């Protein structure tokens, strides 16, 4: 080792995640500087725009779907599987959750529960198609889950664009759901969806840590052959995992529709790109749920801060996309994040 390398090595001893963030911040800052902006101002805007007391609710509100989609990706990833179909699954959940209170009679609270459950079941079942394709026909789930997303999005878009469109507006969207069937507001933009997602997140972490199923999923992720040899029913497990993953995607769609948009609007669930942000957060943590949740929350803060930065300074919020990608790339190559998926 040359002498020059030594301080480098000491630097690299900073724990990987903070170091990655540091690298991202420095590179992002340079980018801002080169294009004539003020990096300090930009970062200050991001931080206050996401973590200051009155912007925190916005961050949390953004974190609910993002963390949800992080779990969607993390659960299969824990077992060495990848679900790229989050978009389609979320949209199905959103549409179902909007249709239940619109077309079913019943008291509001009951409608909420039914809508959420129906959304989860519908999305979960749709997600299992990809698992079925792999277990039955050997079609790689990676690509079938991605491809299955398009028909789901297309059909939902058609449904709200034509037969079930709210004809009083010029957009492809369902009518507003009745007030009674909306999620109760906690304060400001925050609604009960936050609590629901919190419970789900805790359940996922506990399942991963303390149950037989969690152990089996982890072992599958480390060596699928080994898990199969040990008696883990791989096909059934894959189906179950995809159902859970899809159901959470459906839940995310349902919470957005019932909690903040109050109707299903074509494209509105997809344009924030929760699915890909969630996938990145999950990859960042190698599928480990708690780490993934933290990464998801971090991305939520970054993105919310990005919007604030764009409002405050004229620096475009795509900067936060660049930041996120630098962080994940750095972690991937510097510490081989995600390399633990041993077999296939």
């Amino acid at each position: 080792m040359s002498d020059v390398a030594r301080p480098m090595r000491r630097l690299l001893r900073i724990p990987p995640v903070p170091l990655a963030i540091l690298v991202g911040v420095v590179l992002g800052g340079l980018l801002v500087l080169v294009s004539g902006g003020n990096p300090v101002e930009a970062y200050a805007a991001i931080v206050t725009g996401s973590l200051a007391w009155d912007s925190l609710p916005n961050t949390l509100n953004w974190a609910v779907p993002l963390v949800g989609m992080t779990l969607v990706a993390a659960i299969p990833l824990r077992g060495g599987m990848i679900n790229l179909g989050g978009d389609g699954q979320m949209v199905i959940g959103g549409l179902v959750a909007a249709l239940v209170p619109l077309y079913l009679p019943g008291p509001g609270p009951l409608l909420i529960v039914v809508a959420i459950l129906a959304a989860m079941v519908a999305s979960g079942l749709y997600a299992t198609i990809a698992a079925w394709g792999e277990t039955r026909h050997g079609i790689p789930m990676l690509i079938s889950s991605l491809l299955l997303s398009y028909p789901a999005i297309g059909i939902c878009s058609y449904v709200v664009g034509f037969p079930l469109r709210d004809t009083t507006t010029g957009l492809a969207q369902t009518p507003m759901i009745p007030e009674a069937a909306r999620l109760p507001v906690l304060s400001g933009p925050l609604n009960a969806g936050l609590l629901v997602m919190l419970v789900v997140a805790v359940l996922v972490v506990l399942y991963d840590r303390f149950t037989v199923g969690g152990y089996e999923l982890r072992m599958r992720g480390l060596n699928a052959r080994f898990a199969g040899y040990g008696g883990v029913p791989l096909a059934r497990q894959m189906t179950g995992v995809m159902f859970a993953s899809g159901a959470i995607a459906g839940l995310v769609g349902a919470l957005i529709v019932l909690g903040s948009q109050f109707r299903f609007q074509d494209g509105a669930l997809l344009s924030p790109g929760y699915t890909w942000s969630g996938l990145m957060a999950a990859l960042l943590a190698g599928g480990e749920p708690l780490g993934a949740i933290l990464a998801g929350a971090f991305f939520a803060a970054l993105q919310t801060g990005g919007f604030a930065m764009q409002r405050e300074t004229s620096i475009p919020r795509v900067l936060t996309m660049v930041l996120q990608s630098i962080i994940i790339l750095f972690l991937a190559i510097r510490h081989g994040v995600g390399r633990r998926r041993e077999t296939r």
Partner: protein
Amino acid sequence: MLDFITPFLVNSAVQAITPILLAALAGTLCGRVGVFNMALEGQMLVGAFAAVVGSYATGSALGGIAAATLATVAFSLILAYGVTVFRGDAVVICVGMNLLASGLTAYLLRQMFGVSGTFSDPAIVGLEKIRIAAINGWPVIGWIFSRQTALTWVAWILVAVVTVVMFRTPLGLRLRGVGEDAEAAETMGVDVTRYRIVTVLVAGAIVGLAGAQLSLGTVSIFSEDMSAGRGWIAVVAVMLGRNHPLYAALACVLFGFADAFSVRLQGQGLPNQVTDVVPYVVTLVALVLTHTKRRRRQDPTITASP
């Protein structure tokens, strides 16, 4: 149904396939050396952006192609070194690269040209369409090849070249070996890391061409995220074609014609939300058909349990 197939349509389908085909070729190259390239979408976007910048700056389409190739090769360094020297996970790196491409091109678009969204300018010189009078009149061949850009020609020539190199040359044998079992290749004295790096970079250059075709071949415009999922279709084609350039090309053709067909269906009054889905459904069906036969060959542990 056959009256759907008009010369114009075939011609435009071939044109629309070109970027996907180039990207898929690059994907098969990477796949052959054991690097699963999911970053085609982002690489194509970088190529498209650099092509427009290069063409705008040099005032020539060739300058655009050169810039696209260089920029995408540079961008591909992340993947090339990331999965080899730094031993990162290909999936993670590719997801990061896609995001980086999307964010960086949008950011640079604003900072370099002061516009957001779309950048078009008369100074951007698009690719010439090659018109060969001799073949114009021929059915089918004429439809396919008249009025295409040089890159479309290059794409199809590359399909042949890559196939020959892959299966008939020492280099190809080595590449295939590296992809099948890197450790075995290493013991035979083949420098796996170097082969992988070079292959990924060459593939990067090819995706650069895909990007150039997208932004200079069809339209002379750059718009944000204009790759619009084409890179993902290329990834699907690579998997459908099992890293074989000819089969991957076939998959691209299948998708391209299903897509052209879907536009036709739209012309018949079907809602576009439904017709848009057609090429994906066709691809899914192809996926199912190509897999049902191989059903029992898979890992016994997977099919276990009733």
